[in-house]
């Protein structure tokens, strides 16, 4: 019973420091799985290992039956795993539309010569890229007026949405969202929640790191809880809410008076 994504005994050390140890869990196709845990628990490190920002020190990452740990990042994107970043990483002087167009890279093929000669095939491909980019900007709720703005000039919340649009442009089957509502107010958080629902409706499986518990509890089918680089619990939101180990990780001593 292996899922779309399987982590098998994944470990990551930085020198003598263990950031992840012996992490194993599966994500089934179509699920929204939340990754929660205190700051420094290893959540973003997990994303970085899955997307090959750095390789795992131990274990392996399997996507759709194929071992992807060891592949370069662009190859993992091409196989259908994309992500957003905790601290937004847009191409800030490029336009909003161009940012999403960059995300189409691995689904298109025009090289130097076709690009320079502007062959009919290339023009059709560019049109397709632009059309898809606009479609995705609509999906994430960015307006037509924003298309030609520099990405860096967008308000913060819109930058987060733009990053999601760029990640979707590669037609992922698994989308990794790293704190998509960090720093947002309630109304914006609700918007992102609805966006996550729309993305799921497209058939995209989602792995979500988030500190906003109301969002996590509402949006996720299952949760995986990290603390000090280890997985301490896994289950439905209701199970996790009542798990004493999780409460301890978040609030300190077990059974403490203020828990």
């Amino acid at each position, binding site marked *: 019973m292996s899922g779309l994504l399987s982590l098998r005994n994944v470990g990551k050390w930085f020198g003598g420091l263990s950031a992840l140890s012996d992490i194993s869990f599966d994500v089934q196709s179509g699920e929204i799985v939340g990754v929660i845990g205190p700051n420094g628990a290893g959540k973003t490190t997990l994303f970085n290992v899955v997307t090959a920002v750095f390789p795992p020190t131990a274990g392996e990452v399997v996507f759709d039956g194929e071992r992807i740990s060891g592949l370069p990042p*662009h190859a993992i994107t091409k196989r259908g795993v994309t992500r957003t970043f905790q601290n937004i990483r847009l191409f800030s002087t490029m336009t909003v539309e161009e940012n999403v*167009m960059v995300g189409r890279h691995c689904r298109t093929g*025009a090289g130097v010569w076709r690009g320079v000669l502007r062959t009919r095939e290339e023009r059709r491909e560019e049109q397709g890229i632009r059309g898809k980019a606009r479609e995705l900007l609509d999906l994430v709720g960015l307006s037509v007026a924003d298309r030609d703005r520099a990405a860096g000039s967008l308000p913060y919340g819109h930058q987060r949405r733009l990053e999601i649009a760029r990640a979707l442009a590669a037609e992922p089957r698994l989308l990794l969202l790293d704190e998509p509502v960090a720093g947002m107010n309630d109304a914006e958080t609700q918007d992102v929640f609805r966006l996550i629902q729309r993305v799921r409706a497209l058939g995209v499986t989602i792995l979500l790191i988030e500190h906003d518990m109301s969002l996590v509890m509402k949006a996720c089918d299952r949760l995986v809880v990290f603390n000090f680089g280890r997985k301490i619990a896994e289950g439905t939101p209701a199970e996790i809410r009542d798990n004493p180990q999780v409460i301890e990780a978040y609030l300190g001593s077990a059974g403490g008076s203020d828990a």
Partner: protein
Amino acid sequence: MPLEGLNPYHLQVGSFVLINAILGVSIYVTLSTGQLSLGNAGFMSIGAYAAALLSTQHQVPIPVGILAGSLLAGAAGILVGIPSLRLSGVYLAIATLGFGEVLRAVLINWESLTGGAVGIAAIPQMGRVILAWAIDRGFSPGSLGLQSNQFISLTVFLILLLCTILTVAFFLRLSRSRVGRAYAAIRQDERAAEAAGIPITYYKVLAFSQGALLSGFAGALFAHSTSFVSPGDFTYHRAVEILVFAVFGGSEHIFGPAFGAAFLTVLPEALRPISDYRYILYGILLVVMMVFRPQGVIDPALVRRFRRSGGETPA
């Protein structure tokens, strides 16, 4: 006819402007993926020497020699580009500068092939070859109202103009294509670019070797314009000069280094009457630029404004 008044000296300055513009584009292309290469003088020497040797020792036709010289420089770019991937910023600049200097030492010392410090003379000059070819077919430059030397300089200038226009058009189009977007993405944020599915290793080596190929192209054109090359043409000063084209003109739009090359090639000539002071002025100009317009004279915002006011629609 107005052609009679053509001054071969002005045409020659114009030719150097065009060769330098191609060199300016060569550093721009590599920089457009965020890699600063100071090896372009070295790659230029590869193109120049290859073209010169092919035409003087093997009687290869000039266009074939220029093509071969460019491709050889591009291949050298791949060989230098791959190990250079580990380096970035100033370290890459130092390594590529070192490559250029090593290459120059080879040119000086491999006397049997390169003629050593003296260099290679009597390289067929494009203009003269074309004139001889035309005269064989009963043409006389006098029919255009031109002296022979005017015709020669004009021919060289026009060939270089065509080469420069093609080069700029090629890379302008490339910058607005899928590959150009990949370059821009890598320059802005490598991590985000690879997460977006761009194979950054491939594109960085591609851009590096494109820059090398262009430098080699400029070098081969230089050899067949001046008919003489020596290691002294490809020193550290040349490498820095190419860098200054991009720094002064601007490195974020292809017109920047091309403009920088034109301006900085004409300026010293225009300042000949006060030649004792011209490099002082040159230096002051650069300092002023660094203070008031560090991105260079031409940046994308300026190009956009110019387009809008000109009523031209961007492609």
